[in-house]
């Protein structure tokens, strides 16, 4: 691994290629900076958490979210069309009998609009190779010990199809506001490597 510093060889190569492309009219000055600003203002796990909290307090929304993710997230102003093509969103609900976990074995497909950029471990060969073969052991490494009776289903994302986990609502949260509930939801919970 290399290239974690601005002075690294790859940083200089990137600057060189940008300059070359500007020279050839394939990049506008400031275009890169504008896109970086847009990236920083893009999706975060708070988006996914807001969807989960709404599904916890509104059973009709929960049903719509599970039936047609793309249509339901539009109700909260979200879209899977941020990239060049709209990606299909499937939302799977955890329950006492079944726990869902998401991976992209081929690379790093991920619902960025709802979760922001994926964590490094999600993109690692270790996670991609192992979670489909030994999900229970992998979840244990993340500190999630599921009862032996809970079935684990692993979903492999692709360029066209993205997945989001709807965690189980924690006990003793009656009376909490939607906003408070959203605060309980973590990025790992939305991927399936944590309970919530």
């Amino acid at each position, binding site marked *: *691994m290399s290239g974690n510093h601005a002075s690294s060889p790859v940083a200089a190569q990137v600057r060189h290629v940008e300059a070359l*492309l500007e020279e050839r009219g394939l990049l506008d000055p400031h275009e890169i900076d504008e896109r970086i600003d847009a990236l920083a203002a893009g999706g975060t796990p708070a988006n996914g958490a807001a969807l989960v909290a709404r599904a916890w307090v509104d059973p009709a929304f929960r049903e719509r979210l599970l039936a047609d993710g793309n249509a339901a997230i539009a109700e909260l102003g979200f879209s899977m069309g941020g990239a060049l093509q709209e990606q299909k969103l499937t939302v799977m609900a955890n329950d006492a009998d079944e726990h869902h976990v998401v991976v992209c074995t081929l690379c790093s497909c991920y619902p960025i609009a709802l979760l922001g950029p994926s964590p490094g471990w999600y993109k690692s060969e270790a996670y991609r190779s192992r979670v489909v073969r030994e999900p229970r052991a992998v979840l244990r490494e993340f500190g999630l010990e599921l009862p032996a009776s809970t079935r684990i289903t692993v979903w492999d994302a692709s360029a066209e199809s993205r997945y989001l986990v709807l965690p189980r609502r924690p006990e003793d949260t009656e009376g909490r506001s939607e906003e408070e509930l959203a605060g309980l939801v973590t990025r790992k919970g939305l991927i399936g490597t944590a309970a919530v």
Partner: protein
Amino acid sequence: MSRINDVGGMVGFPPIVEEPDEPRFHADWEAHVVALNGALLRRGVYNLDEFRDAIERIPPGEYLAASYYEKWFRAITTLLAEKGVARPEELAGD
């Protein structure tokens, strides 16, 4: 035929390492690579399937040794050369 990126189910990889408080990018150049790729896709210099393919055909040894955004940058320069935008030696700054 599967390529090196197709690691699902492959044995031999180590435990998963989580980075606490992981930043969105570890260096400015990584954000530049993402922005650059977006700009070139939008201009139609190449499409998303070509980009993915360019990552997937990185030779296995290099694929496994490279960081995530190093793979992206390598795919971008491969495609810029193949599309005739610039010669490899120009891209390398030689």
